[in-house]
């Protein structure tokens, strides 16, 4: 007995190792990519503690302790961009969730398979429109040709309403960006909710119909409660990402328009601008590290909460 195991074990191990080498070869390109492009930058974060200059390089530049962090937090920009980041993301999250949920409930009422499919395709499309294109559309709507006033102001003109110059009105931008987000993500979110609706057993609706429930009643008292776990997970994940602004969309739209910074400048846009204009790598890396650390806390908390919901949720 003992002998037979010792006899077969090496053979099996040899066979396994031969296959394993092939598998390791398969994994190699991905592993190298992660080491260079995911873990490399993490190591590069030492720049945050250095007085970086290009000629000495990342590891040769002199240390300067927490100087970069002190500089950032005493610059007075920190509260503004942190508040903006959290506020804007919270607004985006709430609006796109509400729109997605509502659209899913309503798409679900569309009878014909083809019609519903078509509607779903149409409202999903904006998700694939790049931030730059969104920015161009927005300028057409809000500024128009040569600043003559865009479509929106033409429309307001009909009703004799005030026609502000939108690109110099910071107060309006959290809402404008939120509408952009609903345009961009409303359909996308509704597809996720529709998928969850698919898994609701049909009998529930049949029973409700027998009891004389209206469609609105079914949507409110059956579908919506059953979608709550999905909603919970999406919100938790959104909150987990709350420290990472959607850089691309905001920067593509606002760009370097300083008038709008008070309400639209988020951590990512701030980091990018300081990198480009000031070229202060140390401070910029320090802000990035601060963002990553706080973001890490949020994401980890979100993952833990999500696993809780996952266990309890009956739908997902």
């Amino acid at each position: 007995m003992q002998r037979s195991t010792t006899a077969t074990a090496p053979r099996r191990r040899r066979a396994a190792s031969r296959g394993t080498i092939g598998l390791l070869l398969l994994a190699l390109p991905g592993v190298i990519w992660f080491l260079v492009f995911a873990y490399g930058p993490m190591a590069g974060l030492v720049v945050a503690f250095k007085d970086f200059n290009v000629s000495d390089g990342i590891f040769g530049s002199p240390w300067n302790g927490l100087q970069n962090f002190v500089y950032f937090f005493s610059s007075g920009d920190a509260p503004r961009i942190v508040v903006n980041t959290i506020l804007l993301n919270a607004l985006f999250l709430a609006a796109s969730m509400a729109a997605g949920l509502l659209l899913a409930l309503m798409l679900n009422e569309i009878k014909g398979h083809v019609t519903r499919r078509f509607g779903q395709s149409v409202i999903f499309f904006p998700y694939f429109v790049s931030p730059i294109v969104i920015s161009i559309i927005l300028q057409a709507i809000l500024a128009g040709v040569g600043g003559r006033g865009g479509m929106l102001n033409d429309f307001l003109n009909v009703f004799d309403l005030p026609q502000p110059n939108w690109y110099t009105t910071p107060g309006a931008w959290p809402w404008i960006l939120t509408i952009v987000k609903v345009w961009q993500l409303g359909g996308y979110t509704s597809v996720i909710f529709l998928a969850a609706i698919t898994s609701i057993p049909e009998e529930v609706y049949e029973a409700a119909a027998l009891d004389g429930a209206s469609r609105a009643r079914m949507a409110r008292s059956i579908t919506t409660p059953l979608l709550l776990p999905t909603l919970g997970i999406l919100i938790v994940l959104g909150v987990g990402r709350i420290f990472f602004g959607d850089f691309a969309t905001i920067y593509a739209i606002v760009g370097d328009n300083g008038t709008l910074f008070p309400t639209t400048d988020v951590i990512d846009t701030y980091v990018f601008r300081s990198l480009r204009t000031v070229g202060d790598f140390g401070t910029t890396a320090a802000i990035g590290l601060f963002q990553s650390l706080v973001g890490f806390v949020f994401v980890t908390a979100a993952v833990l909460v999500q696993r809780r919901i996952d266990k309890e949720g009956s739908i997902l």
Partner: protein
Amino acid sequence: MSVEARIDTLSDLGVEMVLDEIRPKAAKAPRRRPDAFQATSYVVITIFSLFCLIPLWMIVAGSFTDESELAAQGYSFWPAPFSLAAYQMLFTGTGLLNGYLASLFITVVGTALSLTCTASLAWVIARRLPGISRPLTIFAYIPMLFTGGLVPLYLLVTQVLQLSNSWFSVILPIMLAPFLIFVAVSFFRQLPEEILDSARIDGAGELRVFFQIVLPLSKPILAVLGLFYAVTYWNEWFMALLFISDPDKFPLQLILQNLISNVTNAASLPGASAAQAAAPVYQLRFAMTVLTIAPILFAYPFAQRYFVKGLTLGASKG
């Protein structure tokens, strides 16, 4: 343990849905009379669809409208007076061609690299090899929680790898999406073990099993992943903004962005001559926008179902 558990939940939720159409059940529930909520739904969905489409249509209409009319009357739903000036300009210059070339290279080469690396790494993780798969899972998972941020990446690409002005500076930093790797893992774990075992008994090596059995069986998921990567590459402009400064190498999105920032200067379009500097700026911008989204617009009707499926897969992780 925790990470594995998370991935298992993902696969539970995901893969049947990938294979299933999204077919809302409630719509099939018995119904006796037209319902107020139903009517409202039709109205709201129609309005929201228009809300999604009209901005895009305005761009298309604007790209065919004479610039002087745009300046005098603003935008209209129908291009009048009709003008092809902007398109003529774009098609005679070399800028557009270069832009398409750059975007195509980034998208095609990038998607090929992304797919290859994603699928092979995902398969090794999905194989549950003792001592290998679990560490790899964690290895690929950590970057979803913590990132080095912009500055170290910038230094890496420009100083260490010296990739400035190469299209690979756009491809490489976004080449692998950990999330999509785990989507692939969850799909691979659903493949019928018997087929793989019978191949192994017939003496097929691990590589052969992967290339000749796993990949052909995984075409649906490869299509989903490929489409997601392709759209990401096509729409990517931030990496190009950071790393590409040679106008001849600008991808389309970056050319477009330059058209926005230099509002009054159409000469910023690479390949534009001095004579074209007095060109129809806004019309040109719209035409360029139309040409940039055109490929997505044409591919969308065919690819849309895959996107919906892929999204459903990722539903719980967003």
